[in-house]
């Protein structure tokens, strides 16, 4: 069994930021990620981020990721890639399956005084007739294909969901050379930011509001998607007969939201609260990102699905809290740092979109406080 002061699971924006904050104070940090490259979803984000200068606004996600990676090196964070957390074996002991450079995997148990679960979110599925055909995929998968693996998933894409993920991935698929033949949205309005919608509208992409996919069909003699039939919905989300439209497409991307990945935190004994605005069931936690299990923290999409910018600051908050709890920061230093981060987080949760999330976050923190 290996022992570390801090174990962070997930090297996405939250995990990276947390590791930097904690390691800079001198704490011993092990950061693990199941992928062969760090960054989580950050390196797929080739667009410029919102926010203020303090949030690195205007910088592309991929570049923010590169900066964070540099900082982990400077701060002396220990990195294990190709390492999957498979379970919990005892009090703050996590079983990890680690693949070494020769491709040989082994199971290693790491015991840590503080554990941060930052393993992100999982995409929600929708099931319409034909959703199991090749050509139907998560928008996240399509984004990985074009932005990381440099492979086009298809030529004619139908996007399901008009939240920021659906809008951004549509835009990026077009940048990669595909054509987006439409965005289908069950709600009567666009879910994501209108500046994102504006970009894809200018590119001529129709947005079918109050519509859903009725079925996807394979072409004659084919087993892959070649078209989809969409239908309009009434105000009770029931299909309106006679409004069916057939749209030719070879790929259907599903962008109908994410939910927190809670299996690891649940195995660690963390209780879950239900907050629909942030993806459903999620670990309850306080404003320091600590859960009801002392020494176990959660941040980023695992602690409620938001954005990379909020994930980074939640990670920083967890990193500072863990370092302080371990005695690497004085009370004054920690308070000052936490105050700064809290203010930035607050700024990101302003406005009509942000307020909803702030309100949701307040509820989960209130749940968390009940267990302190």
């Amino acid at each position, binding site marked *: 069994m290996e022992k570390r002061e801090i174990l962070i699971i997930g090297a996405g924006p939250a995990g990276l930021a947390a590791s930097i904050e904690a390691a800079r104070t001198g704490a011993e940090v092990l950061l693990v990620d199941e992928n062969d490259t760090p960054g989580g979803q950050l390196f797929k984000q080739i667009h410029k981020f919102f926010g203020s200068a303090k949030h690195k606004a205007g910088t592309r996600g991929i570049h923010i990721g590169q900066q964070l990676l540099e900082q982990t090196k400077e701060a002396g964070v220990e990195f294990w890639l190709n390492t999957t957390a498979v379970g919990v074996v005892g009090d703050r002991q996590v079983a990890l399956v680690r693949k070494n450079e020769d491709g040989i995997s082994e*199971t290693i148990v790491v015991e840590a005084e503080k554990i941060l679960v930052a393993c992100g979110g999982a995409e929600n599925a929708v099931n319409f007739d034909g959703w199991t055909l090749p050509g139907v995929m998560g928008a996240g998968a399509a984004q990985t294909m074009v932005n990381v693996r440099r492979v086009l998933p298809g030529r004619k894409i139908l996007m399901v969901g008009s939240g920021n993920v659906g809008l951004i991935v549509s835009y990026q698929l077009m940048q990669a050379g595909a054509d987006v033949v439409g965005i289908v949205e069950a709600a009567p309005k666009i879910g994501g930011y209108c500046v994102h919608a504006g970009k894809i509208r200018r590119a001529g992409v129709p947005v079918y509001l109050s519509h859903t996919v009725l079925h996807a069909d394979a072409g004659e003699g084919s087993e892959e998607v070649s078209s989809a039939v969409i239908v309009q919905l009434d105000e009770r989300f029931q299909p309106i007969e006679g409004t069916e439209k057939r749209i030719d497409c070879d790929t259907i991307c599903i962008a109908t939201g994410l939910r927190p990945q809670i299996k690891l935190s649940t195995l660690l004994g963390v209780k879950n609260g239900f907050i629909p605005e942030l993806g459903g069931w999620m670990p309850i936690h306080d404003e320091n990102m600590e859960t009801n299990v002392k020494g176990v923290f959660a941040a980023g999409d695992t602690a409620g699905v938001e954005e990379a910018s909020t994930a980074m600051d939640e990670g920083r908050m967890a990193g500072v809290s863990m370092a302080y709890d371990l005695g690497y920061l004085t009370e004054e230093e920690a308070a000052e740092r936490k105050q700064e981060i809290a203010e930035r987080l607050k700024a990101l949760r302003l406005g009509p979109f942000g307020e909803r999330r702030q309100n949701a976050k307040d509820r989960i923190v209130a749940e968390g406080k009940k267990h302190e």
Partner: protein
Amino acid sequence: MSKSVDAVVIGGGIIGLSNAYWLAKRGLSVVLVEAGDLVAGTSARCDGNNYICDTAPGEITQTMRLAVSEVENLVKNELDEDVDWIENGMFTLAEDEEQFEQAKKQCREKQEDGVKCRMVDSRELHEAEPHLAPDIYGAIEFTEGGSLSPILFGFALGKKVEKLGGEIQRFTRVTGIERNPDGSVGKVLTDKGDILTKNVIDAAGVWSPGIGKMVGVDIPVTMMKGDILVAESDVKVSNRYVCEIGYNFLRNDMKLDGEDAVRQKYGIGFLTEPTGADNSLIGFSKYPGTDTGTNFEVTRAMAKRAIRFYPMIADVNIIRTYAGLRPWSPDHEPIISKTAVPGFYVCSGHCGSGIAYGPLSGKLIAQMILGEAADVNMDRYNLYRFNN
């Protein structure tokens, strides 16, 4: 106005459902009360072996044969649903010549009891089980009985109970049992209302002592944990139910170290069972424990043991692990018994054989309640046998 029935069965696992089935079949009005969903406890976390292979010779083996024939009869003639019944025999493996000699002895004993079994040499064994490690010496083949999915079995029993007129109240918690002035059972209190009855059967498995306490009956049932690993369905490991004989020789009084000590401490042995859904279940372990979270040290040792017998399994994925709690009695025999409280019966402590023993146990309880002669000698299953 409380409802009134002939009997209330407490517990919706295989034992409780079997009791409700027999009582309803025999024409009694019966309500089964279960705190959660049906088949949600031990019955959902066990294997489905119904072969007669490792019982002590003589009366115990004969009772087991009777029990298995009850299961077979239910599955084949009574239940309306498919329960993944597989009837292609099982192997008890001997690793070396020494174990093979022990196996021969066991085989002879079983044959003397009339059980259908025979010795299988290495060549025939490996033809039947091509993935088996080449050095495995031989096996006993048992062909009496079969295996099933305990979960499907439970739900099928539940449907049958309702079809026979029995009532099943799920998500209903028993909060107390009221007795008449003469001390006999009078009323079962639940969070969903009271039920008047003269007969209560405590079939709550590992939770049966708690029910017993409600009427002052001490039931010496404890929890004996067992872990199971589930292998992915893409790869066929074994063609039939297979277990090892060597486990029986790891006695508690032996001084062992290393791996063997872990096996001894947690009662780890090898078994694999192909399921109706093409997964392989890998067992087993046996040690005191009260939680259904799997033990990492134990499941790792089980994985290693599985590779010893089926080396190819090293590359097969584990998709899930789970643990069940066997209701354990001090002498490893079930408690199927009347008690000092008139009308209060105990049907528990089946020690990991609850699936096979369930239907017979239900039948025996029904015979007791109806005042009929029992099919087997009931002294062996009496609650008070431990007092002597």
